[in-house]
């Protein structure tokens, strides 16, 4: 199966079969990750550039290692060290990278739609590594891969996403992806952090964490950014934690074997209690490993669009 688009901009416009294909491919990649010799030739001769306009440790490192494990030539560009500070436009920066023989540009940008803009202007494949509040597709893919590994499928599962839905690109990508794969998604969070019309995406909206958690198979906490408090979106971190923090007691509303996910980095004691982060149900560390596997899969599938090889 060949991915329809040259780019991975989001899960909103991706078909369920394509998502499943990525998850299947990630299985093979995860196997490679667990072997003693983490090196494959799949990206040999390919050039991968990460272009990050926001700080990131895990996503960037995850992409970088994924490309290195697969033998690509890779390079990193940070907004602070590039011509951005000289006033170059995003399109011009992207075109410059494109003209150096780059096969894949991995973009993180604070403005929603930035990857869509460059995708139209470059030959290279563009992977969205997080754009504003819009999407973070590889994060959602790794979340779904984690569930896929444990449960075999997302069909019929109940997922609860808790926290700052308004500003979360992780929540949006997961809502699109999980609902496409047949899961039932609930969201809960302070009403000031709930985007208008979110119910029209097919999710159930709750104003208490307990209601959203009832019978959930998957519980996903989202990172609360403390500067939101300063903008008046919630009164204090203490009150947030009191009403929407996930602790062991609240987790009992979910199914006994519910999986706990979080995109990280976690504010321990705010959105998730330390017991939950380190508890048996937590998949947070595995998510990190799976992130590399999923990104290997995505890089592989996008770069093989022009060739006939296939490892499946």
């Amino acid at each position, binding site marked *: 199966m060949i991915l329809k688009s040259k780019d991975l901009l989001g899960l*909103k416009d991706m078909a369920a079969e394509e998502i499943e294909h990525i998850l299947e491919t990630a299985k093979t990649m995860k196997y490679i990750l667990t072997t003693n010799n983490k090196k494959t030739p799949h990206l040999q001769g390919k050039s991968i550039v990460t272009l990050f306009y926001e700080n990131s440790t895990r996503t960037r490192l995850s992409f970088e290692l994924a490309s290195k494990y697969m033998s690509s030539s890779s390079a990193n560009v940070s907004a602070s060290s590039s011509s951005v500070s000289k006033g170059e*436009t*995003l*399109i011009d920066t992207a075109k410059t990278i494109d003209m150096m023989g780059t096969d894949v540009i991995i973009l993180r*940008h604070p*403005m*929603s*739609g*930035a990857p*869509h*803009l460059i995708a139209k202007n470059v030959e290279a494949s563009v992977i969205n590594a997080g*754009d*504003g*509040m*819009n*999407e973070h597709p590889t994060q959602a893919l790794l979340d779904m891969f984690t569930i896929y590994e444990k449960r075999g499928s997302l069909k019929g599962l109940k997922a609860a996403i808790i926290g700052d839905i308004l500003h979360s*690109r992780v929540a*949006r990508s997961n809502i699109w992806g999980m609902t496409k794969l047949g899961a039932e998604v609930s969201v809960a969070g302070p009403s000031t952090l709930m*985007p*208008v*019309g*979110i119910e*029209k*995406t097919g999710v159930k909206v709750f104003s208490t964490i307990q209601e959203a958690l009832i019978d959930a198979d998957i519980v996903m906490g989202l990172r609360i950014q403390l500067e939101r408090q300063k903008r008046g979106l919630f009164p204090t971190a203490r009150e947030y934690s009191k009403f929407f923090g996930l602790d062991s007691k609240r987790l009992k509303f979910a199914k006994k074997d519910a999986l706990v996910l979080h995109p990280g980095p976690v504010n321990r004691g705010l959105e998730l209690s330390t017991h939950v982060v380190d508890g048996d149900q937590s998949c947070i560390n595995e998510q990190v490993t799976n992130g590399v596997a999923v990104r290997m899969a995505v890089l592989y599938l996008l770069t093989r669009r022009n060739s006939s090889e296939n490892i499946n």
Partner: protein
Amino acid sequence: MKTLIKGGFIIDPKSGKNGLFDIIIDKGKIVEVGNDLEFTTGDIVDVTGKYIIPGLVDAHCHLREPGFEYKEDIETGTQSAAVGGFTSIACMPNTNPVIDNESVVKNIINRAKQDGFVNVYPIGAITKGQAGEELSEIGELKFAGAVAVSDDGKPVKKASIMKKALQYASMFDITVISHCEDLDIAEDGYMNEGYQSTVMGLKGIPSAAEEVMVARDLILAEYTNAPIHIAHVSTELSVDLIRNAKKRGVKVTCETCPHYFVLTEDACEGFNTLAKVNPPLRTAKDVNAIIEGLRDGTIDIIATDHAPHHIDEKNVEFAAAANGMVGFETALPLAITYLYKAGVLTLEQIVEKMCINPSKILGLNKGSLEVGKAADITIIDVDEDVIVDTAKFKSKSKNSPFNGYKLKGAIYYTIVNGKFIVREKVLL
């Protein structure tokens, strides 16, 4: 040389003429309107099958000169207006320098006399530098030729300043045009807060940002008993508030723009920066309310809010893109297609909203085809199909979301002060 325009169907609600009449123009004025007028010498123009209406008057546009000539200037802006059927346009003061003193007003009037293709009327700023702090010299602006005052592009944030502006301007019989936006509510939003902003993860501007300010200004206008004109109304509640204020006798008039009765927030899909405008495109419910407001007369004017921007200001991230769209060259066909052909308004009502009312509110002696008036005339074919092609726009900027739209209504002739500016659809 005299000109005889023969065979057209006149729609001139002001004189009550509605039928087949010929017009004779001489020395820039309409000298005769009647049946079967004959000529032995002179220019005879046969417009059989077409409608003759008063030249369109736009109460709200941005010509970008002085200061932003890379977007538009008086020459290209007035060419764009002429091919769109406009013969008189009022330009907003958010130029550089701002139109907040006599010399800038006079400069624009002189530049328009030199390079302009249509009549240009500057709108002065309410406050110095549009900074919202101190009133401009509104009296002097008026006597220099400003036809209204507005801080368009920016709201007058302080209610105390708005109240004083209304009181002060009414003394000089000049209308205050208010750009209603509560920036505290709008925060740093980029599009309407609603389903589409949620789906695209773009910060939303709540409709309340407009409505709160409309309410404030209506209350201030009622309190001061001064006239106020609300610019670019875009929401259902704004229309309701204005309707109610009119019932209470508040001296309020208002305008909307074609994009608010044609497009919804869905036009922003795919991060389409051409649909980024302020106020933002709203929902179907709002579009219906705007249409109802036009139908029942709550909305007095259809203005263009012609807002040219360079391609480099649109070909960027949605959040970074400039607000606004060009409007001269699509306004009338959009009104014909979405209001007249859709059975919302008669042609007489379109003439009221695009000629008579803007002329009245701005205090211009326009909007009519009566004998003795300046010969500002637009001649159109309302049945002809036109396909919008932004590449062919006369405006320097092509930022329209309507490219490729199939509309009804071709502008055949635009006559300004008796001079043919557009003839047989060609700019002369």
